[in-house]
């Protein structure tokens, strides 16, 4: 199976490569449009600030390629957020694959949010209301590893939810596009199961 990891200079992707290798896959890290289009599965990971990572996607014209991919695509962390319509982080328009917005934890507009909430949301948190093929053999209430200061709002494409000060979207799916907020590559057995399920799509 050919698995392409999208390279756009957005943080550390080594752990995604190693996680796939543990599942017997040798992924290719690339920004080559032909290689990405020709892969059986595409992983869109990344860590970083939304407006600068969007800029890096545009420099490589990946903003035109990604929304038109036909094979299963898995966005992880900032990858998930960049698949949304808009992000408050750097006030930037994103790829618009999902009609959902990205907001900041503890934004001054959120009067309901506990002022003692620490940002980033860092560590293991349980995901609930699991839906879809990616969660085959993943336990309801499984703890996954999160590190983020911005979150995707709850939306109709949601396949799991998580709570940190408020409920937010922990994963979502639309057609061939899948996205997880947590670092599935660093989420022990449950995260590895999810990756395996993605490979089996």
């Amino acid at each position, binding site marked *: 199976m050919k698995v392409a990891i999208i390279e756009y200079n957005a943080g550390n992707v*080594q752990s995604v490569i190693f996680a796939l290798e543990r599942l017997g896959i040798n992924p290719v890290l690339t920004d080559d449009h032909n290689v990405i289009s020709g892969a059986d599965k595409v992983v869109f990971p990344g860590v970083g600030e939304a407006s600068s990572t969007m800029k890096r996607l545009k420099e490589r014209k990946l903003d035109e390629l990604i929304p038109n991919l036909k094979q299963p695509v898995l966005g992880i962390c900032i990858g998930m957020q960049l698949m949304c319509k808009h992000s408050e982080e750097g006030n930037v328009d994103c790829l618009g694959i999902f009609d959902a917005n990205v907001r900041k934890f503890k934004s001054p507009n959120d009067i309901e949010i506990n002022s003692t909430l620490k940002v980033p949301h860092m560590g293991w948190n349980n995901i609930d209301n699991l839906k879809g093929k990616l969660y085959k053999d993943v336990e309801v209430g499984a703890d996954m590893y999160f590190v983020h200061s911005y979150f995707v709002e709850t939306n109709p494409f949601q396949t799991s939810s998580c709570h940190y000060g408020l409920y937010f979207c922990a994963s979502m799916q639309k057609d061939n596009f899948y996205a997880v907020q947590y670092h599935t590559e660093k989420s022990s057995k449950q995260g590895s199961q999810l990756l395996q399920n993605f490979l089996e799509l």
Partner: protein
Amino acid sequence: MLKKRIIPCLDVKNGRTVKGVNFENLRDAGDAIELAALYAQQGADELVFLDITATIEERATFIDFVKNVAKELDIPFTVGGGINSKERVSDLLKAGADKVSINSSAVKTPDLINELSLEFGSQCIVVAVDTKRIDQKDFVFVHAGKTNTGLDTFKWLREVEQRGAGEILLTSMDHDGTKSGFDNDMLVKVADTLNIPIIASGGAGSVEHFIDVFEKGLADAALAASVFHFGEIPIPKLKEALSKNNIPVRL
């Protein structure tokens, strides 16, 4: 609900773990990667690896070590020890580390915290602070706890947060190696001061100490070494006890 984290810390030299008792007298506690994998399997939430080697040659081999750890581990890990440049951080992250921890270099060049968090994101920049109480005042110590910087610990912690650290690893030198419990009085004051996660370190000796550090010290995570390395507190037993005491943990 966000879980409280249990973090074994491994001091590493040439791929083997060593634990300093009161930062001196080193004892051998086995093969680092094997031990790390065991901890991950037992339910450790994260791991910290501190490079305690001194020479440039050994520093280079630590990168290979980090790569081998990353291949093996499916939980996050932090690396620290002698990190003082953007290039070093980049090499460690590329090797597969999830976070880096800086200590003496942050005190020497505070701008490094800003530079690193801008370049790599706050989420992967941990600032380790070693603190010691002298005449009812708390001071920051550096160089493996040998040098008093004269900096007020609380003032420094606020500065570190403001400069962009994503997390604090706070070691109480008065408690470290004593197995008499974490410095909860200090930790609760720090929790009140900061808005970023705090990893408590120094003093773990019993299961009750871990319950206390979360209940009284309000820590987000607790780090320990020898109680884990020598099997005094098995991680599954610890997490079960925490859970029974209504402390949210990943089981």
